[in-house]
């Protein structure tokens, strides 16, 4: 009787259509929010923030983004790493003061003009918007090709974008190392980026993004835009016949998904890592990491995105603590074993539970409705 909907009647369509129709779910959600905002910031230390909490929050955003595209709209993408790089590099340009060329010179020559460095908050958001534009561009092939072929096209985006940020020195402000390094930026007088940040400040900064973006994702996927995505995913011919414009549905999915992934990339660079080299951080392995998150977490589920991100972030930490810390194994053996375990888990999930952790959670909830009486 931990979980019940008996007696929880709805008398309006508004009440029936809300995000958490069951009262117990709703209160649990408020409780989680309260704890996350009011309690967790006081408990955090540097290790927890760096090793677990920040990566979990940031990858949750990326996983929600990819889930919108792959889980809700059915368009497979292997370009997440590249799109995260776009978010990171454009955020970097906005926060350091982007120099642009305007074609208004005396004799028709362009003049260089530097935008003032923007606030870190707006830099991250603008990074998201830039990525959305790039996402639309690389989403265009989806209008003609599907499935594996589309996956290959997005793979091309991945490699092209990494190559671009290696070669185009303007994007990393002509630094000798080719790296981008986040300078110290303040929000409300508190350092968010740079070497001297407080754990709670970076945590709250990311948490605000996560909460708002998750809510927006939930709203988008339950509205008519989300239905048109799912219609395209489930049966594109029937979707078109009832009035879904496939171009609009697919490109909005690419745009919004890339917006999320771009913001995740920007946060990963600016708040979490501080300095990145594109091939190392935003390579193909990052695309697969985010894809694994949504496969393990559950395609087409916002909760699944969180579950998958938590799983993929926690598993290596857990394995390292157990194998290296407790059993005293060599670090490299533990690292290799991690690959093997993740690979095996992907196969297990694809066979045993294609809908991922989110489906397991649903099954548990169904069981809990009747617990402890089986009938």
């Amino acid at each position, binding site marked *: 009787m931990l979980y019940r909907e008996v007696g929880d009647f709805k008398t309006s*369509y508004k009440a029936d259509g809300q995000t958490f129709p069951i009262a117990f779910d709703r209160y649990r959600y408020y409780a989680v929010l309260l704890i996350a905002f009011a309690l967790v910031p006081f408990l955090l230390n540097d290790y927890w923030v760096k090793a677990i909490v920040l990566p979990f929050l940031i990858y949750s955003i990326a996983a929600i983004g990819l889930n919108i595209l792959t889980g809700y709209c059915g368009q497979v993408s292997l370009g997440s790493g590249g799109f995260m790089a776009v978010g990171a590099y454009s955020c970097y340009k906005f926060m350091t003061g982007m120099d642009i060329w305007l074609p208004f010179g005396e004799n028709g020559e362009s003049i260089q003009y530097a935008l003032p460095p923007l606030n870190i908050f707006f830099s991250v958001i603008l990074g998201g918007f830039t990525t959305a534009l790039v996402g639309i561009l690389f989403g265009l092939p989806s209008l003609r090709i599907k499935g594996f072929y589309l996956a290959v096209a997005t793979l091309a985006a991945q490699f092209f974008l990494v190559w671009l940020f290696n070669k185009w020195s303007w994007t990393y402000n002509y630094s000798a190392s080719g790296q981008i390094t986040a300078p110290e930026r303040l929000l409300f007088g508190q350092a968010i980026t740079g070497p001297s940040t407080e754990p709670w400040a970076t945590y709250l900064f990311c948490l605000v993004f996560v909460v708002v973006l998750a809510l927006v994702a939930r*709203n988008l996927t339950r509205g*008519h835009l989300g239905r048109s995505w*799912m*219609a395209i995913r489930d049966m594109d011919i029937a979707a*078109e016949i009832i*009035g879904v*414009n496939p171009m609009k549905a697919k490109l*909005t999915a690419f745009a919004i998904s890339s917006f999320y992934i771009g913001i995740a990339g920007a946060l990963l660079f600016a708040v979490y890592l501080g300095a990145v080299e594109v091939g190392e951080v935003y390579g193909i392995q990052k695309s697969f990491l985010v894809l694994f998150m949504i496969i393990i977490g559950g395609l087409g589920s916002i909760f699944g995105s969180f579950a998958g991100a938590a799983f993929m972030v926690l598993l290596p930490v857990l394995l390292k603590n157990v194998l290296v810390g407790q059993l005293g194994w060599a670090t490299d053996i533990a690292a290799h074993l991690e690959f093997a375990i993740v690979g095996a888990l992907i196969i297990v999930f694809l066979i045993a539970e294609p809908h991922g952790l989110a489906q397991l959670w649903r099954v548990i909830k169904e069981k809990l409705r009747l617990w402890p009486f089986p009938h």
Partner: protein
Amino acid sequence: MTDVSTIDIPTPYQPYTTEDGRKIGDVVMEMKNITLRFGGVTAIKDISFDIREGEVRAIIGPNGAGKSSMLNVISGFYHPQEGEIWYRGEKRPPMKPYEIARQGIARTFQNIALFKGMTTLDNIMTGRLTHMKSGILAQAFWKGRAEREEIEQREKAERIIDFLEIQAIRKAPVGSLPYGLQKRVELGRALVAEPSLLLLDEPMAGMNVEEKEDMSRFILDVNDEFGTTIALIEHDMGVVMDISDRVVVMDYGAKIGDGTPDEVRNNQQVIDAYLGVSHD
């Protein structure tokens, strides 16, 4: 050999009222000399017929006669090489299927084409997409128009759910429903768009007698209550002859008969096509 033109009801003919009191109006859709080819195969050969407002129009014919191709031409999947389609008094230019949906033409499929990952309610709500206009921002924050619109459209969807008697499966994923119910949900999805022309591709295929009776009742009710014009393909002759006002008969891509069920039943060419005839 009977001349086709002698079987046809003379056109144009006046609006009239049927025996059961339904009003049959003007021509809504007219196909003029449609020819559709796939490479060397001619699926439809120079076919002309019209669909009048408020009527139940059946397209029948043996397997491979080109009936489904005809429906696909109407709903915009196929673009005929020759011929014209007139809809509501205007010649229709080549259009994408989703644009045709916005003109008020809805359809169901021969093999159920529901969105399997979604619930019954969501499937039916998807049918209201063409009526939903709120922007991305309004939807993202679920304020203003997005929220209002969702509730308005939910009311429309619920009316169809009541009409088709599928309240009990409202929140069930459609993939797990039995076949007959899936067909009904698919009809609901087409119906909720409030189409002026509803195309049904074998709505009773694979159903048992009770399910067929239910479906026939729904089709007649739709026609009667909402005044929807219906064009349907069906193989069950009993059903077709019972529920339709006029019937087009196709064979090998050509039209071999057109008229009221009685006229078609007595047409020698139609009898030959269905029963076979010795070619000597």
